């Protein structure tokens, strides 16, 4: 399959029907998904209608919108009109179907994109592995015995296996960047407050972000641009206007101050992760050893806020149906619901100081680099892995390097690198910019792609 924007251009020129592009995707899903388990729901009938509508508009000579004919899928926590939003759970099976699409799905529809279905995830987004007990684990297309990462595991796997060129996921503590890293695809976690979250099932209102996955930076930026816009009905959407990024991704890097994070981030990076960031740093002539403030404390504070808000959100349902929750996360939800409020308040107060420290760092730097995961994808079922001689719990430790960054709300592109060769497992590098500067992160990401340092080929499955 070609990239998303190649499909859009082919549809616009009349070289391909949107319905043909969709048929290619559906065929690829049918061939691969029994092994990958990325999809939880198909919306093929709706997709055919959307694709035919695009083809009809072209036949009438209309100017087509920016993503006309682009097939995509969304994490199972986005509302899709007519489907129950299960968020990877079974306890929501009896809930009414969504009466409207999520805001970002509405914006993708307005841009002409074609919604193919919903994707596997950790239940209620509480996890980094997508080992979903109810719907089965999502398998990494780069090695089907390994995890796809999470919690947006289906998003990473669907893109890596060539089922769809673009997916939409969510990231609270790393849930876009971890699967991007482990599946070898591009991911964008925008600035906290950039994109509307209305119409998605929440996890942690103080930390939830939404964003796209893709196999090239151009698709990532085009999708991101199409989804931008203020939303006064989402209290967490702080963007006042659209700031398009696609047109700027090819701009020169001259004058950009690019650094590599040391300290905590180096200590928690395994050999492949260090190699990945070294490759990117060398290509970008980045300065080593930049100190990010209070990363370890930020991770603790993010952990506490996640547990408290997530536990509080689910407390009413936990009282009645805890036994039906994901066994891998239910005890953490309960523990979160019982946390002392003093911990939560300290974490939120610390966050304000932390934000100011991080903003000061970006007076000296434009873009900072660090690995997205400590290690490449682990085998499904792994309980512990070795991190520089320490045995660490596998599931929470996949977020060691992402949590401190999202806690500050900075935009990050996860760039797919191949530190051990293109035949081995990928590992992503986080390209981090100051809040509201997605354009810089995407520009540096595009430079890595142009230099063939980072790339996302379709997995050969």
């Amino acid at each position, binding site marked *: 399959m070609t990239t998303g924007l190649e499909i859009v251009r082919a549809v616009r020129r009349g070289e391909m029907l949107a319905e043909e592009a969709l048929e290619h995707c559906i065929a690829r899903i049918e061939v691969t998904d029994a092994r990958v388990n990325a999809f939880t729901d198909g919306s093929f009938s709706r997709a055919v209608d959307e694709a035919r509508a695009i083809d009809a508009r072209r036949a009438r000579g209309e100017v087509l919108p920016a993503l006309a004919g682009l097939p995509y899928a969304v994490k199972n926590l986005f509302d899709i009109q007519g489907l129950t939003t299960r968020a990877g759970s079974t306890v929501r099976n009896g809930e009414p179907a969504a009466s409207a699409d999520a805001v970002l799905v509405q914006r993708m529809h307005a841009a002409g994109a074609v919604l193919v279905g919903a994707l596997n995830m950790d239940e209620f987004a509480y996890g980094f592995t997508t080992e979903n007990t109810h719907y089965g684990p999502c398998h990494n297309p780069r090695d089907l015995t390994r995890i796809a990462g999470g919690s947006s595991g289906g998003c990473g796997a669907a893109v890596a296996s060539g089922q769809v060129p673009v997916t939409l996921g969510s990231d609270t503590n790393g849930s876009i960047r971890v699967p991007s890293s482990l599946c070898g695809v591009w991911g964008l976690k925008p600035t906290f407050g950039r994109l509307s979250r209305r119409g998605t099932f929440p996890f942690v209102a103080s930390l939830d972000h939404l964003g796209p996955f893709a196999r090239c930076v151009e698709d990532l930026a085009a999708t991101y641009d199409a989804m931008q816009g203020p939303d006064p009905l989402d209290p967490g959407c702080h963007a006042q206007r659209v700031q398009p990024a696609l047109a700027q991704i090819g701009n020169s890097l001259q004058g950009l101050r690019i650094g590599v994070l040391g300290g905590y981030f180096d200590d928690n990076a395994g050999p492949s992760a260090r190699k990945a960031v070294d490759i990117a740093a060398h290509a970008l002539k980045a300065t080593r050893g930049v100190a990010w403030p209070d990363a370890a404390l930020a991770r603790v504070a993010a952990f506490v806020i996640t547990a408290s808000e997530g536990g509080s959100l689910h407390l009413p349902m936990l009282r009645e149906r805890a036994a039906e929750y994901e066994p891998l996360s239910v005890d953490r939800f309960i523990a979160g619901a*019982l946390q002392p409020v003093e911990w939560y*308040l300290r974490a939120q*107060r610390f966050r304000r100081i932390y934000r100011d420290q991080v903003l000061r760092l970006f007076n000296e730097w434009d873009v900072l680099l660090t690995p997205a995961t400590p290690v490449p994808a682990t085998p499904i079922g792994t309980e512990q892995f070795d991190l520089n001689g320490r045995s660490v719990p596998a599931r929470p430790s996949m977020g060691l390097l992402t949590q401190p960054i999202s806690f500050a709300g900075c935009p990050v592109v996860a760039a797919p690198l191949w530190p051990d060769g293109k035949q081995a497992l990928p590992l992503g590098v986080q390209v981090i910019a100051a809040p509201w500067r997605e354009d810089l992160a995407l520009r540096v990401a595009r430079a890595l792609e142009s230099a063939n340092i980072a790339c996302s080929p379709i997995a050969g499955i």
Partner: protein
Amino acid sequence: MPDPRSLDVTDYVRTTARFLELPLSDAQVERVAEHLARTRELVSALRATPLLPEDELAEIFQPAPFPAQDPT
């Protein structure tokens, strides 16, 4: 002899869960207490971080947007 620190976490879990009307089996109480005890260890660094009275929450309630213009 149980570790006294884990014992008080178990008591805390049992009591707080009852207060919140969250039914837990003995096995669940033990598992949740393990999580909470680990979190308590992690939080010790956060609790030791000095915070001044003016270090308020990251998100502050705003009754209405600040007016763009002064009233005439």
